[in-house]
């Protein structure tokens, strides 16, 4: 057996250990990315082989939590890919307007930048009061940072630009208060957001959604897990509900493809076909 294969085997065992001990199942993550992150943890730990981390994975909660944090890649910004938010505002919002209560789910919300972006958008469209935004992630560290709604002040400029590009109707500064070196989102936005721990790998449907945002999350999953996740979204969405994926993602090769129509192709906004 060559070195790479042994390493692969070690990674398998390591993931198995994590799963059996903590219930987090990373076995169906995209392998290349997963290997990179395991290697990173290995180099930080200062050990030589992946298998040497197994005892740590079993007995050391701090180690496990660090690994968990490694696994969730929290790249996010407010109104990331402004054109997506613009299209949501122009074409999706009018459809959502017909609902008396609107449920929105940000699956894999990371530090919440997109969640607050959505809240701002809904506020400006006069829909926030009818909305309930569920923001979920399996990474508690991200969640608690998202709950605080505090963002570094040096990012605000980028956010403002994005906000304008996304068709913002007022001034971005209306939505945050500046502290010493950070900006805190105003309370009115936070009222309608429910943050909760939810793991796309194991957990199920928890409410009926009119819109599901899951951007740049599934790129870390392998095909099976992607399909499982999309199944979960399909089961969560109301008839004719919306699904928004990352700009590099698509439904084209998934099992659920036939359940959706492409609503805005470029922005990767899909619409659930009517349940029959």
């Amino acid at each position: 057996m060559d070195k790479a294969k042994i390493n692969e085997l070690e990674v398998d065992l390591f993931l198995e250990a994590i799963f059996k001990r903590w219930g987090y199942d990373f076995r169906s993550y995209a392998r290349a990315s997963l290997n990179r992150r395991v290697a990173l943890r290995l180099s930080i730990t200062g050990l030589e082989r992946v298998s040497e981390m197994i005892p740590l994975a079993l007995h050391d909660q701090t180690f496990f939590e660090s690994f968990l944090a490694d696994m969730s890649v929290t790249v996010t910004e407010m109104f990331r890919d402004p054109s997506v938010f613009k299209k949501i505002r122009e074409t999706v919002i009018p459809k959502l307007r017909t609902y008396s209560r609107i449920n929105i789910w940000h699956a894999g919300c990371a530090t919440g930048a997109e969640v607050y972006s959505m809240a701002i958008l809904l506020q400006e469209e006069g829909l926030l009061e009818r909305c309930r935004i569920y923001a979920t992630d399996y990474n508690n560290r991200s969640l608690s940072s998202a709950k605080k709604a505090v963002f570094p002040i040096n990012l605000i400029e980028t956010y403002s630009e994005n906000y304008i590009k996304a068709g913002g109707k007022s001034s971005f500064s209306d939505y945050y208060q500046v502290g010493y070196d950070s900006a805190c989102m105003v309370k009115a936005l936070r009222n309608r957001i429910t943050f909760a721990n939810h793991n796309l790998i194991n957990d199920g449907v928890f409410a009926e959604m009119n819109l599901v945002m899951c951007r740049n999350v599934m790129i870390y999953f392998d095909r099976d897990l992607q399909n499982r996740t999309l199944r979960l979204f399909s089961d969560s969405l109301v008839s004719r509900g919306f699904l928004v994926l990352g700009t590099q993602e698509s439904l084209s090769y998934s099992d659920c493809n036939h359940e959706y129509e492409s609503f805005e192709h470029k922005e990767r906004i899909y619409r659930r076909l009517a349940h029959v």
Partner: protein
Amino acid sequence: MMTLREPKVMNKSLRSISTKLAMASAALIIAILSIGTVGINALSTLERNVNQIVNVSVKKLQLGERIQQDLLKMTRAGKNIITAPSEDQMDGYAALIEQTHSNLIQRLDLIQALSEQEDSDAINKFRQKLTEYMAVDNKVLEYSRLNSNVQAKNISATSARKAFDNAEAALRNIVTVNEKIAESYKEQSAGAQLKVVHGTQIKNDMLLILRAERNIILSTNVEEMREYADRIEALQIDLFSNLTSLRKLTTEDGTSKLDKFTRTWDRWSDVYSRVLELALLNSNLRANNNQVRELSRENINRRAFDLAAGEGRQLADEAGLQMDIIVKRNVELSTQSTELLAMANDRLLVASRMIQDMLAIHRAAKSLILEKTQAGMDVFSDSIERFKVDLQAKLNRLKTLAGGDELYELELFEQSWSNFLAVNEQVLVLSRQNSNQFALDLTTGKGRELADQAEAIISDLVAESESSLATERDQSSRVYDESILVILVTLTLSTIMGGGFSFLMIHMNIRSTEKNDQAHWIKTGQAEMADVMGGGLKLDELSRSIITTLAKYLGASVGVIYLANDDDTYTQTGSYAFSSHKYASKTIKAGEGTVGQAILDANTIMVSELPDDYIEINSGLGEAVPRHLMVVPLRLEDSVTGAVEIGSFEPFTALQIEFAELVSDAIAIAVRAGQNQERVSRLLEESQTQSEELLAQQEELRSSNEELQEKTESLEKQKTEIEENNVSIMQAQTELEEKAHELELSSTYKSQFLANMSHELRTPLNSMLLLSKSLMADRNGNLHDEQIEDAKIIYEGGQALLNLINDIMDLSKIEAGMLTVIDELVELEPLSAGLQRLFDPVATSKNLKFEVDITDTAPESINTDGQRLEQILKNFLSNAFKFTKTGKVILRISLHDPSTDSGLNKLNNKDLLVISVIDTGIGIPRNKQQLVFDAFEQVDGTTSRKHGGTGLGLSISRELTDLLGGEILLKSNEGEGSSFSLYLPLNAERGSETKEIQSAGQQQTSTARSGLVTSALELRPTPYITDDRNQIVEGDQTILIIEDDRDFAEALMDMVRSSGYKCLAAADGRSGLYLATQFQLRGILLDMGLPGMDGLEVIRRLKYQARTARAPIYVISGYDREGEVVASGVTGYLQKPATKEDIESALSDIGRLSLENIPLILVIEDNQDTQRAIASLFRGSNTEFAFASNGKDACTYIESQQFDCIILDLKLPDMSGFDILKKVSWNSEVVLPPIIIYTGRQLTDEENVYLAKFTSSIIVKGPESPERLIDEVAMFLHSDLAKGQSEGKQQVGMLHNDDILFRDRTILLVDDDMRNLYALSRELQQLGLDVLIAENGQVALDKLNENPSIELVLMDIMMPVMDGYQAMRKIRGISKFSELPVIALTAKAMPEDRAFCIDAGASEYITKPINVEILKSMLRVWLFERIEFGG
């Protein structure tokens, strides 16, 4: 006497003590000084040495690793050379080897420069091996080239093989050598690593020792000192053991450095032991000091120590001066290293961002390949262009930041990168040309390799930057530690001096009390300030304590401190007894206000007699205004790091000013050190978060790249599959074509065969006919009558056979395409005359009338094939005469009148000639009309016997008609005769396609249609009122016609009847409505313009009666009111004059809409316009509507009839939608259908929750709501929910038996999800439970407190305001609810989550999506238990 002597004795003893003290003090100062200079200097050299060793080792390690990589790269390239198919590629790999080799040599030089003798030997050995390797490698190249030549020229296979084997063997050899070298290097590097470990430990020990030493100096009691001394001793032992280990590992050169270190360290040890001694002595002195102070108070012997004091002072000043130098150097160092750190940080950042750009470019290239549209490609190529520019800018920036070694790497990178860009350019071009395959190969193959190469170089750079960052970080914190140490020593010095001087001062006081007091006051202040500044505080804490201490010491009433920012502004960072004031600003510029001025001038400014409102000091005693102000700049070398501003009620004394200026220098140093430290830690933090962020971003990019890669691959796979499919489709097509060709051939063969056969048959038949004819004539008269009869039969049989053969001949000729049409001018008059002549005898013999009728409109002639035309007409006529016993046969020639509907199917020319043959014969039943044109078909099998004929005549006629470009229409009613009409275009414009034989299918449709229309038009007159109302029995399908035009009504009635319905007719709306309520109707045909009540009103009333609302209404109207009518909810609308087809299809629509399947929707809405709008939305879909304009009607409807769906507006004139729901839900007989709330206003949360019991579909009216309404209705009508509706009643019935347990029990459902609330509460209500609803934990608690009847709670977990866990904990916190069953509903699947729920107080746990059966059994368990407990 005693009193006189005593002072003398005291004086004497005092003097001796004082002398000792003074000497000790002086010695102490000298000792401390030597520590300050020698100790510190030695230590920093020492540390630098160790650092150097560590750094060199690290660098060597890195270089070693790189060399290893280079070797691998070379080996790989070597292998590639052997396998490379072309010389070009070999050259490429050879160049790569060459390049790598030169890199390697460079690194080797570097490593040798860093290495000592022993290492150098190994390296030389390595060089030797490398040369060997290169030689072999060249050989390999040579062999490989030979190999390719050999192959190319196809000479000897064996020699090529040999060359290859040789090359490979050589390569294997090298690999082994390399591995050995690598192994030995690894050992060395392990040694180096160990050195680093020991070195670092030594460093740590040193730091610890120094700290302990510092503590010794500062400590006040002997025990403490001893403790520290012991610790130092232990550390020293540890240090030496490490040193010994290090020595063992170190080569000669290193040993000399270590010796140097040991020597320095020994010197330090000497100094240390003196320090210890002195410190101990000092502590004794301090004890004595108090005694002395007491004595000096008594002012005895003032002059005793003038001298000592003078010398002491001088020495102290000198020490201070030296200390200042050290401090300044350190501050400088710390600033410099901070800058270095910032630069390294920048470098790291830029390099990392470059990697990101590269990944993005790569990704854009891939996306571009996947993109199909030019516009899409433009987007991606634009972004590539943008990234390219960005990357170049970053590269330039990086160059300005990079050092020597890095510059070299950057050059390498630039080279690889430009290679990659070239390939990328190719990719773009190819993509645009749509040669995706090549582009893909490029981007996944060569492009990827180049990009990886470039990325690897930049990654190296990042790693290097990171390590240099780490080194500089260490450096910086080292310098910082050092400077802090120095500051501490300085401060200690002044403390000690303070102690010493205070003593000296006492003696000076003997001479001048005042002066001594002043000096003492200054020194004490300095000591106090030193204490405050030495604690390693953060900058803001530091400024606060500085200003507080200073102000307090000066007895000032208020004070603030300003510190410099990076941008030449100064911010107030601390204050004392100062709240805020209108003139005081937080941030100022140099030159701004008093403070700014002081900073600008770098001079102290004094202000007195301030205005009353300058500063107000808030205190409990009242408000007072300081009158005097002192602003002291904090100078450090040439710059000003800040200022302190002190306000006082009293004027400042010269002493106070002197003190403030004195300490300002120390403050400046402390502040600068603090600022540096703060900056360093901020930078560290920043670089940490930035590199984390970058790492994450890179990860995301990489993953999405890989995802894209995978997609590209599956696209590739798909493409291959499609290609494969295409190939098989092509194959199938070819096969099909072949088959078709074969078929064509065989068909021709068949026709030819038939033609030949008939010829062969005809010849003998001919003679048979002739002979039988002559036999019949009985010219010889010798035959019996019987024999003549026989001959006649033979003749007739032969004649029939001949006809048959002729017909078959004709048909097969046509089928074989052998019949040609010759157009000529055919005059109609002669044609008809000829036909009349031909058939008159037949008519006479059958006693029939034969009329030829050429109408006035008929043209004189027509351009067509006369022979064929005649053949067709002959056929018609012979049929007509054949099937007519009595009456007449008419041949009518006329011009087609387009205004009368002809039922023509194929022709749409305006100018058509019609030649009809009409008889009064047996007619053809409708269902047979399509058959008569088929070959060998007659109306029934028996007819042929009765009427004779081949049955081919009409087939041939049809085929011929097609050839002539005409069409035949048949109108016939059984027993009433038939009419065959031939339609021919006057101007024959036959294209070749009209000659093509029509397919049988099309033909059938056209004949079928024409048949049906005939039945409608040739009706027996019936009285208007004679409908079927007396014959209708249960189960009959009845259609009501409301139409005041009697003729049209009759026509309709006949059509209705012939479609198999019973028919009712009414001439006006009122009687129509009456009939509608009397009979169960299948459908209604309605005229709009009716006498009395108009059609719209009739529709309205029909729709408003539950009994009639369901029947589909078809409107046939002469008025153009379609919009209005359609909006009223009818099934269909026909404009008069309606074609027969329209009516026919209307009837078939009605037929299709089986009564059970037409969904009936009740629209409860008071606005007529909205009613119409809703109805028109569903136009064309099979839905029927009933309308209710007010709540009362709505309730009646709902209670009297089962609807499939209710659309409910909440605002109605008499009661609200909520009231309707409340009212009808009380009635247990009523099972509510799905309800859609269609409302114009936004609902409150309470309303939403209330409605959730009935529905989850709430539509807010707006521009997009129509679409949504259609969706929702469609969903209900097709969903299982709708189907379950009819079963609802049964479930209610079962309630009494099975689920009696649940009756009238109250449970609380807590969930914020509408779908759950609706679905669950519905299910639960059907069980007989009373369900209360709460949308979050808080509401649940309120409801629980309001309703003591609640026996069980179903609790969702994920909810706003208060989540399920929290709510359950609160519930359990209330004692009366401690036993209340709570079932948690959650989407979480892990066992831990279950444990969470139970921990939070749940009795049970069920996972979403909820299985209702499981929930029911859970409820049985928990509610049953409740009975047990309760009962």
